């Protein structure tokens, strides 16, 4: 098993956000983490990366427990995070954003540039001068440069132009075909469901439903994801 999140409880100061979330992922699997806003998706991700360490429960990655490890150590175990809201380093160039993150492995600058040719064109531009979609490509590229065993995409296509979304989804499908394990949070079900192997639905900081994407009926979607 690649990732095992067992019964975690996470707090922001005094307020509890997660009340016992479970999540298991195998190598090569693409899991969609779903739920309405505020149900604990991003908190689960932050807990996995130890950015907001859980107070109870346990997480192990590749068989190693991650508790009490600083975030950079967890990242080095092989978790590549693409955080919500295209978080690049705005005052570094595209090239610098990519090489600063690089760790040796299959993913190199050339391969990232093949995946997102636009990044090659923008090599020496500051990240802050890129369009939203290009920044998102850069954030994905930067995560890949760390050669992760698990890629986490938190709302990777939110707020992007439809054409750019297609590019990002094309990249996600290519990564899946390449055998990368991906944990993805996204609201575009029409794109998300075909690519996911399994869906995990959260509600009020707890697991509410889990199953194959084709079992997520319109009724269930309305129950757990509708607004």
């Amino acid at each position: 098993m690649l990732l095992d999140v067992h019964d975690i409880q996470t707090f922001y100061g005094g307020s509890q956000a997660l009340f016992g979330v479970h999540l298991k992922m195998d190598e090569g699997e693409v899991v969609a983490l779903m739920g309405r806003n505020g149900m604990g998706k991003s908190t689960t991700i932050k807990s996995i990366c130890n950015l907001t360490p859980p107070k109870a429960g346990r997480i192990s990655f590749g068989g190693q427990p991650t508790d009490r490890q600083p975030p950079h150590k967890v990242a080095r175990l092989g978790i590549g995070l693409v955080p919500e809201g295209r978080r690049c380093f705005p005052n570094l160039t595209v090239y610098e954003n990519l090489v600063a993150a690089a760790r040796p492995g299959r993913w190199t600058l050339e391969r990232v540039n093949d995946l997102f040719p636009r990044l090659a064109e923008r090599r020496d531009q500051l990240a802050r001068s890129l369009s939203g979609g290009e920044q998102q490509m850069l954030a994905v590229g930067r995560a890949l440069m760390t050669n992760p065993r698990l890629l986490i995409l938190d709302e990777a296509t939110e707020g992007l132009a439809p054409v750019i979304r297609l590019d990002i989804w094309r990249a996600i499908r290519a990564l899946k075909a390449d055998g990368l394990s991906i944990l993805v949070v996204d609201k575009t079900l029409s794109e998300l469901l075909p690519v996911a192997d399994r869906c995990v639905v959260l509600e009020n900081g707890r697991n509410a439903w889990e199953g194959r994407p084709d079992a997520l009926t319109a009724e269930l979607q309305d129950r757990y994801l509708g607004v």
Partner: protein
Amino acid sequence: MNRETRVNLLLLVLLLAVPFVADALGQTFTVTLVTRIAILALAAVGLNIALGLGGLVSFGHAAFFGIGGYAAGILASHAMSGEPMLFGFEGSAQMPVIWIVAMLAAGLVSLAIGVISLRTSGVYFIMITLAFAQMVYYFAISWPAYGGEDGLSITLRNGFPGLNTMRPTEFFLVCFGVLAVALVLSALLSASRFGAALQAARQNEVRLASIGIAPMPIRLTAFVLSAMITAVAGALYADLNRFVSPSMLSWHMSGELIVLVILGGTGRLMGPVAGAALFVLLEFWLGGITERWQFFLGLILLVTVLFARGGVIGLFAGKERHG
């Protein structure tokens, strides 16, 4: 060649040419003035690595400047008197030896200061670096063996192989050479992967951690490098004045170095040079007109911070590539 490169080259050529023209015209004082610019610029190049690239507002760089100065003073005084110092070392009146000692001493001290102070950030980092620098300052004051409060004279300016450093233009060349090396180093550093990570740490520490890089070792390395460069400047400054005193270690000096970096353009390669040039020239011209020249310096600094964040370099070379 972009505009900033052209401005940078022009500055360097001016800096290099002025002393020789002045010397030919018999204006030795101008040579000394430009030498002072080069030395202060060197100190600020050091600080700029921590402050400009790393965002580490060190209010204690006078400690490293002063340690460099005392390295020059102490080694020279032992070489002069022939009295052996620690481990039977005889002292030295050779600049390269002094620089190495200055860098080692400042490197060790900055390592200790950095390990502790880099655990804090923001205003606490500023205060803790200030506190450490004040400790070094009071230590120097209360150490009678090397002059204490009165400071230490260097009878004969330390030498450099192949040059007569007592001649102002030749001493200037030494300073300019060291400054040029430091600038090349600083440019290579900021273009390197390490430089990218250092700037990333300034922009967002958590984001850096989430790609698997711990900010602390990177910042510590930058802080130590920065201190070592500033220490060499301190040694040269002592040689320029042929005198070292605790005032080199005082918090005024730390503040002055920060002012140089901000005036010139924080994080810009040649910002420290432009800042030092402006500072020394203002000190000279305004100082000749009124005793209260620092009031006007304050005004200029205020205007820079409010309206011209890019400093002098920003004014002439446009917006920065790095921010």
